[in-house]
């Protein structure tokens, strides 16, 4: 299968890339690892006239540990995110999510920024960055702006990123005392999840404090389960509270029937995964409900 013909640009700096975007508007598409874009181009779901390949812009491939925050450049391969020690220690949900994306061959090429900028509701990383309270740095010729991850995902394949902008990096705050994980249920290895769940929370040992829950693959975009979070904040850490929250999160999801399951099945999976994510995380801190 061949993509439709296109004009290929391979800028060596971000300024050059931004100029190409500015000039070609909606006809230009940025290519990072291409692990989502190339399959879509081969199936002719999309046929951009201009491909702006950013792989030569090595200044976009970095992870910087700045103590209270970790900044990840858009071009960082998922395989590198997975293995980065400081992330494991400080914001483990990010590498734990990374290692569940697709398969090792895809993660060697696929990029951190691409998984987020693509706006696919089935992509895993959006839920993980969302619960950590990350900020997305978008750059255009007129400068950079930061968008809260919660406001970044607009609709299916639609984000707050403008035509003339590049998702440059993601700023992940290091929040002391927060625990959590990302888990998904797959039909087969390497597939998108039937559903995925990210939980990230603080507690004082007896009660939940700040709880954040996000859901993958069960709506037009990643879903922040706000009602479930509100319910859980300041609740005592008990099995009943977690169960109730998982039911609320399941009600907040908006799955549709497809080859990965029926709507009602996916709601059950959401509720199961929320429970499991909390139980796994609490076990590790020794405050088992």
């Amino acid at each position, binding site marked *: *299968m*061949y*993509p*439709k*013909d*296109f*004009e*290929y640009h*391979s800028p060596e700096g971000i300024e050059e890339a931004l100029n190409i975007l500015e000039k070609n508007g909606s006809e230009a598409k940025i290519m990072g690892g*291409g*692990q989502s874009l*190339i*399959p879509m*181009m*081969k*199936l002719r779901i999309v046929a951009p006239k201009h*491909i702006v*390949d950013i*792989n030569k812009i090595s200044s976009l491939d970095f992870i910087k540990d700045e103590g209270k925050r970790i900044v990840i450049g858009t071009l960082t391969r998922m*395989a590198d995110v997975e293995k980065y020690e400081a992330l494991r220690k400080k914001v483990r949900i990010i590498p734990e999510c990374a290692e569940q994306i*697709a*398969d*090792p*061959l*895809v993660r*060697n*090429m696929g990029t951190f920024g691409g998984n987020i900028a693509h706006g696919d509701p089935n992509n895993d990383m959006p839920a993980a960055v969302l619960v950590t309270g990350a900020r997305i740095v978008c750059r255009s010729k007129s400068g950079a702006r930061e968008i809260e991850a919660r406001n970044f995902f607009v609709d299916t394949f639609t984000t707050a990123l403008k035509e003339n902008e590049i998702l440059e990096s993601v700023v992940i705050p290091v929040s002391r005392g927060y625990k959590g994980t990302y888990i998904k249920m797959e039909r087969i*290895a*390497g597939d998108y999840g039937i559903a995925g769940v990210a939980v990230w929370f603080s507690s004082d040992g007896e009660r939940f404090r700040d709880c954040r829950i996000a859901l993958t693959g069960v709506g037009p975009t990643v879903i922040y389960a706000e009602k479930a979070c509100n319910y859980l904040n300041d609740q005592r850490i008990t099995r009943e509270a977690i169960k109730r929250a998982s039911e609320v999160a399941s009600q907040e999801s908006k799955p549709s029937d497809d080859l990965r399951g029926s709507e009602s099945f996916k709601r059950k999976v959401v509720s199961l995964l929320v429970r499991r994510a909390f139980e796994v995380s609490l076990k590790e801190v020794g405050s088992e409900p």
Partner: protein
Amino acid sequence: MKVKVSMVVNGEKVERVVQPRMLLVDFIRRELRLTGTHVGCDTSSCGACAVLLNGRAVKSCTILAVQAEGKEIVTIEGLSKGGMHPIQKAFVEKQGLQCGYCTPGMIISSYQLLSSNPNPSEEEIRKALSGNLCRCTGYKTIIDSVKYASKLMRTEKRK
């Protein structure tokens, strides 16, 4: 509009003028006539097209040839340049293949694993090969082959 692309494949510099939409796997198979790299699914699912790109195993059906500009590619032919590679010997010995279609990809993924982790556990092998599908073996003999290959490589000290 065609563009010039040059890269190093199995240690030799190659240069061609191609359409930017040409996929790396087609570049390798049609332009270079290296047909050991297979097209299985053509939809990024099966891993039969795996090659090493600067030492990392990737799906060559999901990369444009122009993206390999200036990079080093190793295909299954490259691994067996100095005679059969220990991983290949291990796959023969332990019957890690039946029809053989997925085998080049399996060996490329195994190679990346064994170069960074010379003595992997079964769990690590399973994870490393999770991007490669086999419809014949049921994977058991493939896992045995990789375990055996790790032993061969440690004793032969070959990379």
